[in-house]
């Protein structure tokens, strides 16, 4: 099976999940579609580096998260006012904010915490895999998860009480 066929299979298996990951990370549906396409194109270019023993989803997720980071960076550099964080830039008009309180809270997290939450809980990656995908240490992953959970706990205090 060549690279194109393998990636086609992976697109069928994981395309939607990656799309949702990118959409939550970028908070922009159109950009997310572009990001997923770029993810698979980069995977195609780097396919020779993909070792079959690695989890394909983990590999694609690492690429996708880096593509999203590039998009964030580009969005920031494209903006004149360098004092404004990329996350504070105007949101895409076509991104429908979720009604779900938990997802809304995750989406509102700062990017560094949002990334670890999405990788750890949505992509179901181990801390070691998250660390490899983000290019940080496992200790940093643990700290970010702790901080992210702390923020979420504060944000979702009322929700937890309602859920009982």
């Amino acid at each position, binding site marked *: 099976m060549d690279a194109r066929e393998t990636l086609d299979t992976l697109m069928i298996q994981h*395309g939607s999940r990656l*799309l*949702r990951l990118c959409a939550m990370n970028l908070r922009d549906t159109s950009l997310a579609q572009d990001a997923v396409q770029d993810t*698979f*194109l980069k995977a*195609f270019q780097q396919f020779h580096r993909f070792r079959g023993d690695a989890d394909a989803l983990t590999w694609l997720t690492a690429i996708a998260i880096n593509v999203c980071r590039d998009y964030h960076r580009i969005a920031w550099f*494209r*903006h*004149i006012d360098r004092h404004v964080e990329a996350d504070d830039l105007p949101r895409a008009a076509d991104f429908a904010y979720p009604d*779900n309180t938990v997802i809304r809270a995750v989406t509102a997290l700062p990017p560094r915490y949002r990334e670890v939450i999405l990788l750890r809980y949505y992509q179901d990656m181990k801390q070691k895999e998250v660390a490899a995908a983000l290019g940080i240490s496992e200790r940093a992953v643990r700290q970010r998860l702790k901080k992210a959970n702390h923020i979420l706990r504060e944000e979702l205090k009322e929700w937890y009480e309602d859920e009982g």
Partner: protein
Amino acid sequence: MKDKDFQQMVDHEFAQLEWTDQQRMDTLRKMNKEERPVMKRKFSVALVVTLLLLTLTGTAVAATYRGVTHFLTDNDYDRHYVMNPLRSYHTSHRLIVRVVDAHWDGAKLSVAYHIQSLDPNEIVAMRCTYPAHNHYASQANAGIIVEQPPYIIITESENVHHTAGYMIDWVCEEDSSLTVMITFQENALSDQLDFTIPVINVRDGNNPETAYLHFELPSLPDPIAQHTHDWEPATCVSPKVCRICGRTDGGLGKHDFTEATCISPETCRVCTVTSGPLSRHHQYGDDGYCILCHKYYEHADNTK
């Protein structure tokens, strides 16, 4: 919160977000032809950057020249001219040198001087045998001396930093007068508006041993005081600039943005800074590919 709960929550919430077969096919097509668009894109970016650099350089150079155009044309300035003792036939002759014209000719500043003798008994009005350009003729001790260019002027002024390559042409007129054409070959004179030439050495490039002349020139009046500023509007990279003297005033101007496209956001025509997001509107060709970003959409009806 359990992982599975969160996954189900997200999948349920974003159920409408599916990686469709259409998008899958688009991606596969792009994989097939990814090499060419990447090359094209790189080439396009390089081309745009080159053009922008050329434009900016041209604008800056043009602005520099506009800034000093005609800064000497309004007045004649007297100069004193003393011959260098190395030239026996030029000893102690005092002349008045007048600036009769100064203008930019392409990248060169041409200044025309008119030279008169202060003492007609010593030099009889610089009689010229050959009324033509590019000849130097003078009468000293009743002799006619004709020399060929190039003549090179080297100034010793602290205020003129870019004067290593002046050319000088001498024009002998039928009316027994001599006009000296001095061409500044250096380009960077925009900061020379407090232009003073206290001393100029003129060296005959063809005969360096004997051709040293010595000009004594008083300082020029400050040309800035002699004109009303003619302001070039401010841009995002420079405040407004006087076209005559090059003085600046006020702060920077606003950016001059182009419209955003699907491959580039709004871009300032002057400084190339970008602003805002990419445009979501693609420009599809008949083949279904956007002519700018090469994204493929099967329904090429200008909607995504």
